[in-house]
């Protein structure tokens, strides 16, 4: 099963298996990884699963939809490599994905 490394704002790393077809947000929530709240449950409607994708992985995660752009523009401290993790579906190609969480997304 593909692995994803989630790095909390304080530096704590979590490496977990995320099944193909599952969202990267769901991978965090199902493994109780703090820092990804996902209040809306994956509807791209709350921006509480905001993550920074490590630059070498960014292109592989695909493009943001216009709804995602909209929601991200209200998230705190966005960067060029910001994504909403509910909008990234796990694929075999993403095995090894590394991402970081922003400050204060409890």
């Amino acid at each position, binding site marked *: 099963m593909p692995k994803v490394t989630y790095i909390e704002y304080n530096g704590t790393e979590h490496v977990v298996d995320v099944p193909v077809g599952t969202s990267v947000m769901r991978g965090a929530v199902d493994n109780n990884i703090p820092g990804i*709240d996902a209040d*809306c449950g994956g509807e791209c409607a*709350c921006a509480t699963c905001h993550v920074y994708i490590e630059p070498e992985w960014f292109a592989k995660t695909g493009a943001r939809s216009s709804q995602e752009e909209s929601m991200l523009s*209200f998230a*705190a401290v966005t960067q060029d490599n910001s994504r909403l993790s509910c909008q990234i579906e796990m694929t075999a190609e993403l095995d090894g994905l590394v991402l970081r969480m922003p400050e*204060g997304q409890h």
Partner: protein
Amino acid sequence: MNAPVNQDLAQEVAAIPLDKIDVSDPRLYETDTWGPYFARLRREAPVHFCAESYFGPFWSVTKYKDIMQVDVSHQIYSSETSLGGITIRDREEKYQRPSFITMDPPRHDEHRKTVSPIVAPGNLAHLAGTIRERAAKILDELPRGETFDWVDRVSIELTTQMLATLFDFPFADRRKLTYWSDVATVDVNAGTAIDSEEKRDEVLQECLACFTELWNQRVNAEPRNDLLSMLAHGESTRNLTPKEFLGTVILLIVGGNDTTRNSISGGLLALSRNPAEYRKLRDDPARIIPTMVPEIIRYQSPIIHMRRTAIADAELGGQHIRKGDKVIMWYKSGNRDDEAIENPDAFIVDRARPRQHLSFGFGIHRCVGNRLAELQLTIMWEEIMKRFPTIEVVGEPVRLYSNFISGIKHLPVRIPA
């Protein structure tokens, strides 16, 4: 023990012809009898058309997933002031006060981004110390062994002090903010002195005059970290018209005031009516508070509804919505939808996935201050539990006549001596 089911009321509601059900009646919220009405709509007509009401014809959206769909589809369901804005009540043009909550993109996005930094994580961490200090002082001054109004002494005081801080508003005059907030949202049929839009406007003009003076001070000073300074110096907001400025100020006052106030009151009420839950909190506050806070916000649902106006034809829950139709998302109902939330009528302080609720809305208009609201409630309950193992509710709450704000006007309580 949870909310008792009133069998007489349930039977009465079951006997109303479906097309005559009108959940816009503010008395349902004043008397806390809305439950069976929404339960029936969710069951029999989740997207329901009410052809005749005091507020004109409107669609009611009552289930969680349909509300979510409306909230995220801002290209179809508009918030624009000139179409009717975000409340079920239509307002004449001269009483319309636009702000980013009643704007669609792109203007909405620009205005919202100007004020959102005040509730960014870094600033919240900075505010936490102030909130704790003020909460501690408010609680330390409460009387013991005598009945007092929790709403006035605690809920209003904490939220109003916070709001004065966010605006850097003269602290001694802070109750003006409470007053203007109440005036801005009061139902003109509620029996208060504000019995017409004209009278509402008179009072809000005083609010505008006061804030304009403060604006003038801020615009001539270096930019600072308060909401007014941010608006005065923000590229997209520094040229606001007086009406837009008033609209924005009111939005921020109401948003930062009524909602948290009523969650502070509603939380205590829910705990007192659910002693087993109160016991869980007492036994382990550090574990319970993080899940209890979102549960309080769900259970209270401080904003009863938000309105949209369809700007295109659309399908929703099997119904055909036409361009121009008024569509009401009843957050209070969606938060009690058992297809989305398990055992939704129960107040459960350690609920699994407690943040899955509609109280903040979703999509681009999702509450900008949601984390600040949670922070205030969290600190409040941490400080309460350090001092008072029990606060007794000693009488019935007095609720607000409104279909918009789920308000508790008075809540008599006693802290054992």
